[in-house]
């Protein structure tokens, strides 16, 4: 059975032109696969390159070497070599991503933030909102918040919007970057249930999880990113700027 997601020889180096062209190698030779219904977690200390790997899978970061193969439309597509149109299509139909922090677009209601990926995939707005509402209710987001833009929500509320948005569509591959970081215990439990449900539906999940409890309950395999360390981990002050 072919894995839904497979990384081979993936490498990433940041070249900081504004700091005299310092080259900061992050990872090299990354190699792992995720099968349908499986949840793997990328483990390693801060700065080891875990988020970078997830972002490369999503096509948000470029990849300097290697292949990132995903099953798309019955074929194997290499994200590392995909052109922008293909990456956008992959994100619509194949690869979902729940980032660590919600990027709040001004003026869009929370319920529409959540429903948007479904609407983009062709589901009618009312139906999409209905399903979004169900998921938000499950995540304990009170209905009075649904018509409000999430920019003023608490960190935990924002994260639950983010999770709902990522979990709502039915994509075969799901990438989770610290999905439970700002959540309290009851909400953590709900997210764990959601992850388990996704696995039961055959979704391949790659996650970054620091909480031992969550890890114990959702993760099937641990992938130690330090195995693929290129040389030194990225120091925090030299993180590339993604402040927008």
């Amino acid at each position, binding site marked *: 059975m072919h894995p839904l997601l497979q990384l081979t020889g993936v490498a990433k180096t940041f070249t900081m*032109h504004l700091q005299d062209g310092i080259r900061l190698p992050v990872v090299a030779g990354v190699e792992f696969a995720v099968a349908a219904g499986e949840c793997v977690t990328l483990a390693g200390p801060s700065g080891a390159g875990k988020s970078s790997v997830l*972002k490369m899978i999503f096509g*948000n970061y*470029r990849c300097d070497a290697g292949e990132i193969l995903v099953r798309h439309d019955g074929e194997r597509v290499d994200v590392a070599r995909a052109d922008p149109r293909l990456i956008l299509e992959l994100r619509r139909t194949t690869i979902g991503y729940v980032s660590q922090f919600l990027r709040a677009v001004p003026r869009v209601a929370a319920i529409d933030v959540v429903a948007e990926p479904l*609407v983009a995939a062709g589901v009618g707005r009312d139906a999409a909102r209905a399903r979004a509402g169900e998921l938000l209710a499950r995540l304990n987001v009170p209905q009075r918040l649904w018509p409000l833009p999430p920019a003023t929500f608490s960190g935990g509320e924002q994260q639950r919007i983010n999770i709902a948005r990522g979990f709502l569509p039915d994509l075969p591959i799901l990438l989770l970057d610290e999905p439970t970081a700002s959540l309290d215990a009851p909400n953590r439990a709900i997210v764990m249930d959601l992850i388990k449900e996704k696995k039961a539906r055959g979704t391949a999940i790659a996650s970054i999880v620091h909480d031992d409890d969550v890890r114990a309950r959702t993760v099937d395999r641990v992938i130690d990113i330090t195995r693929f360390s290129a040389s030194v981990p990225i120091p925090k002050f030299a993180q590339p700027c993604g402040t927008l």
Partner: protein
Amino acid sequence: MSDADAPLLVAEGLTKYYGRQLGCRDVSFSLYEGEVLAVVGESGSGKTTLLQLLSTQLAPSAGRVRYRLRDGVTRDLESLSEAERRFLFRTDWGYVHQDAALGLRMNVSAGANVGERLMAVGWRHYGRIRGTAAQWLDRVEIEPDRIDDPPLVYSGGMRQRLQIARNLVTQPRLVFMDEPTGGLDVSVQARLLDLLRGLVTELGLAAVVVTHDLAVARLLSHRIMVMKGGEVIETGLTDQVLDDPREPYSQLLVSSILPA
């Protein structure tokens, strides 16, 4: 390659010199239906020159622009007659100016501004023209009782929204935007961007948006092209170029944003 798969707009080696002064050099890209391309750069980057070349308002010194017309045939825009080009501009294209006054008839009512294109393509029923204009004003969030007011008495944000309505009424497939939020108050900008974002998605518009504001590019575009001194520095998926900029100038541009 099926029709829908063929690109809508193709720029090939577009170059423009103003005498010896370089406007832009060797710009090439393909734009597909429903895709938004942001062209970002600072003053003098050549982005406005590029927009004018693409919309045939300027003739290139070298290179060409090809466009797939509604009948499916891709034509070199240089080969179109002026009548064909004007028709294209009126029906299949939109052009949103930074200064809304340039894209509107300031002394004519809002309803007439929106209805003009319809009348130009042969609509002859006053009630229907007015009704359609009213629908569009509603869509761009202008109160219906302002339909008979000329844009001379509108605020800057309202004028810009009216310009958008005027451009979209004939359901164009491609819209050119030149700093659509330039000069507007921040809250007004947010509203306008939100509107644009929604309309682009809803109508499946392809767009080329020139902006110096990376946040606008992030919000509106799928792909981004960074320009400097008339040259293309970097091009690619918007979030990729903004989160993982490769070229020195791109990194400079991205890191220059002051966090709010």
